[in-house]
């Protein structure tokens, strides 16, 4: 009798531990390379970290542009990679609004307004995120497609390159999953 109870208890324990989506963790896919969406992502990320959650960000596709360091250059790129490198924004400061960009005027106005209203800039939010130990992953395939090298990415603490399985493993353990 007691052996049965113990066994059932162990089975139940194993079940609870393997139940997806119960961890105090947020996993977010940052797909967009637009300033507004990136701001939303980083505000949610820092907010969640402040709420005591473990936060994992997975930058993919257009989102990877935000992680480029404008001061770091890499040699030996082929023509396609050079073209992508030239066409895509170099870092957070080069990102544009998804709406009302108006050839850069709208983005400049929004940045001015944010400064006036003392809203944290995207650069500041990245700094806060690193202070709060928000984990940042970059999608390996996106970087490969666009010809980005890890050496030209920002020196964010513990920045790691990974694939979809890493993101999914984190997402499965998370009680919150976002896609921006």
């Amino acid at each position: 009798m007691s052996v049965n109870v113990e066994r059932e208890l162990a089975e139940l324990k194993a079940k609870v531990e393997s139940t997806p989506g119960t961890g105090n963790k947020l996993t977010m896919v940052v797909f967009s390379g637009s300033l507004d969406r990136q701001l939303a992502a980083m505000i949610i990320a820092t907010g969640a970290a402040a709420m005591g959650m473990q936060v994992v960000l997975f930058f993919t596709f257009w989102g990877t542009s935000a992680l480029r360091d404008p001061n770091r250059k890499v040699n030996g790129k082929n023509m396609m990679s050079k073209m992508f490198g030239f066409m895509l924004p170099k870092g957070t400061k080069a990102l544009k609004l998804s709406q009302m960009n108006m050839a850069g005027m709208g983005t400049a106005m929004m940045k001015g307004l944010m400064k006036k209203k003392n809203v944290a800039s995207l650069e500041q939010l990245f700094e806060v995120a690193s202070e709060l130990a928000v984990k940042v992953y970059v999608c390996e395939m996106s970087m490969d497609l666009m010809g980005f090298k890890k050496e030209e990415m920002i020196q964010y603490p513990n920045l790691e390159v990974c694939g979809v399985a890493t993101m999914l493993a984190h997402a499965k353990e998370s009680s919150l999953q976002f896609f921006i």
Partner: protein
Amino acid sequence: MADYTIAKTLDYKGLACPMPVVKISQQIGTVSVGDVIEVHTTDPGSLADFPAWAKTMGHTIVETKQEPGVIKIFVKRMK
């Protein structure tokens, strides 16, 4: 007058979302359990966000005062 003493007063005036909550989360550990931090903010969102943050983190908002030009929130560290 409520029954508590202020261990620390923090000036978060002018800061916008998410910074007040981010900063209090970094500061709460600097006082002892049972101590109260007085936060001054001008962000109206803090009125909803501090209780939400406190509930999630297991701390208590002992008092909220809305004065002209400043919101005062009293956060008690519970654990």
